[in-house]
């Protein structure tokens, strides 16, 4: 067991990937000498050289497009997109190429490419640095989409993503980058696509992922003081979604509240609510509620506290759910 931040955990995970697989590459803007703007790739270029840890041109479509070419050549690139808001220039290469080439090939080609994206708000950043674009990718057939909420998952999931033969979009909640926790470095606790019951409870189920798992856990703790026993599920995988444990939780509690930062309309919460409402129709005592970012562009940083789901908004939704 070691205690570390998510950044250190990711760095350790990447180091292990580079160590164990000669074909693994890291590429992105400023990932080399600078170690990435968040230092996730700190010292990796020094230790593995410029051929394995590649400072790329300022060209996101190029990063994904050449990563595809490198994968066609047998490499296993792990790309960094510097911030969530800068993934869009690469969108075509992501959705028309990375997601579709394996299928286009009839399964003869596999593209084991990982795309790391620091995402989400809460760090007081300027425009384009606090986006939550996960739904765009979860809607895209051919991609897998995962996100970690703590250092242990960060350490293990990045390695599992790198081992995947399918392309994986790997979302890192940047406002959790510096939070420390214990990491058991001997064995992965879960599979890459498994959800995790972060807290068991019986009154209602909070479903979240990435940056807001912590918000949900805090809300559950606050609710406990009021005698409410909330279950918290950390999705971890957004595509595919690990439906069975979710359905089981809902059948137990009869109530669910989804919490995420992204815009509500067509955010992950809509798929969760739609499917769970279908699958657990007779078990639901209240509709699946959503506590999400509003349907506006991410606001100026001095407004982000009003934008982001917080403990009060979650508890308010729990109350509303219980009123049914």
């Amino acid at each position, binding site marked *: 067991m070691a205690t570390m931040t998510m950044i250190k955990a990711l760095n350790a995970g990447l180091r292990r990937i580079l160590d164990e697989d000669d074909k693994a590459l890291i590429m992105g803007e400023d990932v080399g000498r600078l170690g990435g703007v968040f230092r996730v790739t700190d010292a990796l270029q020094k230790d593995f050289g410029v*051929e394995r840890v590649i400072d*790329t*041109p300022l*060209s996101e*479509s*190029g990063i*994904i*497009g*050449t*990563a*595809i*070419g*490198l*994968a*066609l*050549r*047998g*490499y296993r690139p792990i790309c960094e997109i510097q911030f969530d808001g800068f993934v869009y*220039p690469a969108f*075509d*290469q992501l959705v*028309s*190429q990375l997601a579709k*080439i*394996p*299928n*286009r*090939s*009839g*399964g*003869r*080609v*596999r593209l084991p490419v990982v795309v790391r994206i620091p995402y989400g708000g809460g760090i007081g950043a300027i425009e384009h640095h606090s986006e939550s674009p996960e739904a765009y990718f979860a809607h895209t*057939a*051919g991609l*897998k989409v995962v996100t970690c909420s703590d250092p242990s998952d960060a350490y293990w999931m990045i390695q599992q993503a790198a081992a*995947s*033969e*399918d392309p994986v979009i790997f979302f890192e909640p940047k406002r959790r980058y510096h939070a420390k926790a214990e990491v058991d470095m001997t064995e992965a606790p879960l599979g890459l*696509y498994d959800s995790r019951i972060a807290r068991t409870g019986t009154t209602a189920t909070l479903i979240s992922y990435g940056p807001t798992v912590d918000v949900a856990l805090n809300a559950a703790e606050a609710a406990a003081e009021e005698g409410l026993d909330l279950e918290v599920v950390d999705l971890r995988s957004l*595509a*595919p*979604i690990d*439906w069975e444990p979710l359905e089981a939780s809902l059948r137990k509690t009869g109530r669910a509240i989804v919490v995420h930062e992204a815009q509500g309309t067509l955010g992950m919460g809509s798929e969760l609510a739609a499917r769970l409402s279908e699958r657990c129709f007779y078990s639901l005592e209240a509709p699946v509620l959503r506590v999400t970012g509003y349907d506006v562009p991410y606001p100026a940083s001095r407004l982000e506290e009003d934008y982001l789901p917080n403990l009060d908004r979650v508890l308010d939704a729990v109350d509303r759910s219980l009123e049914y």
Partner: protein
Amino acid sequence: MGSVDRPRPAKKTAKSRRKSTSANEPEFVQLLTPEGQRRSHPDYDVNFTDEEYRGLYRDLVITRELDAQGTALQRQGQLGLWPSLLGQEAAQIGSGRAIKPQDTVFPAYRELGVQWCRGLDIISAFSLFRGVDLGGRDVAADRFQMYEIVIASQTLHAAGYAMGVAKDGAVGGDDGEAVIVYHGDGATAEGDFNEALIWAGVFNAPLVFFCQNNQYAISEPNARQFRVPPYKRAGGFGMPGTLVDGNDVLATYAVTEVALTRARTGEGPSLIEAFTYRMQPHTTSDDATRYRDEAELDYWRAKDPILRYRTWLEAETLADADYFAAIDAEAAAEVRELRQRVMDLPDPDVTEMFDAVYADPPAPLLAERAEAVAFRDSLDEGSES
């Protein structure tokens, strides 16, 4: 709007506004005139055996016939679409024959001739345009990637692949590997193409950009895609750019050979612009009469790549009437076989839309697959009963 100089000696277009670029336009590299005369060039030449010279003719003719069959099959409802290469055979065969077995090709969607030169089964082009699959093949073994529909996106894949070749240490000698990517004139306006030039330049990738400038992107002429021709762009990205007569199979061979050698020996990327003309509409869905006239077609008919090459072969007595007849017969046989194979292509099973998406298909997708199969089966039952 500005017009782009076409390297036509006869019918040069109005003076362009390119004050900034050098006043003396280099002529394109040409080793064989439209009239079938050999010309020499200070930097480029070819040295084929008689057999090889004849072989180029065979490639040109068979490619043209196979392509014509694509058009015919589409008209007969056997294909959904066909993008003809008619007129561009020399660009494809010339460059295609310069490619060595160890090289890797990234085509766009019109590269039937290049595929033929690689000695590959060309049925994949037809299964793609018939709609029975998406064009998948064993690209690793073929060293010829899948056809790419999204304009210019393959140029970045090629740049990445070529970076990988360099990383593997597979460049540096005559047996080094090179990569060649095919794209159109229209493609040069896309961001991806320009980013590919950047990456190839910065990483000194063993890559040849082969631009078939067939003068149109669907209906839009060159002047809508650039103010100066693509080969000139190369210099600004740190690589040589060469303009070649794309209807001259010898010249396209010669320049491609030089560029590929440059790549394979570690000297880095380059760009070739093969100036040619698309004699057919963009695809079978297009109506080219809306944007170009017979006079223009006539002008280009006179520059036909096969005619000039045959004239020269005859003049040099490298081939005789018997040879030409034999090639025609061979082409006819190829075409017959192709027709049959296309019509015999089985329709895909519903499961095929699910089975290749992931190496590790997730449970919800397997459930959808089961649902689709059950649904198909229930319809089959319905129709049986």
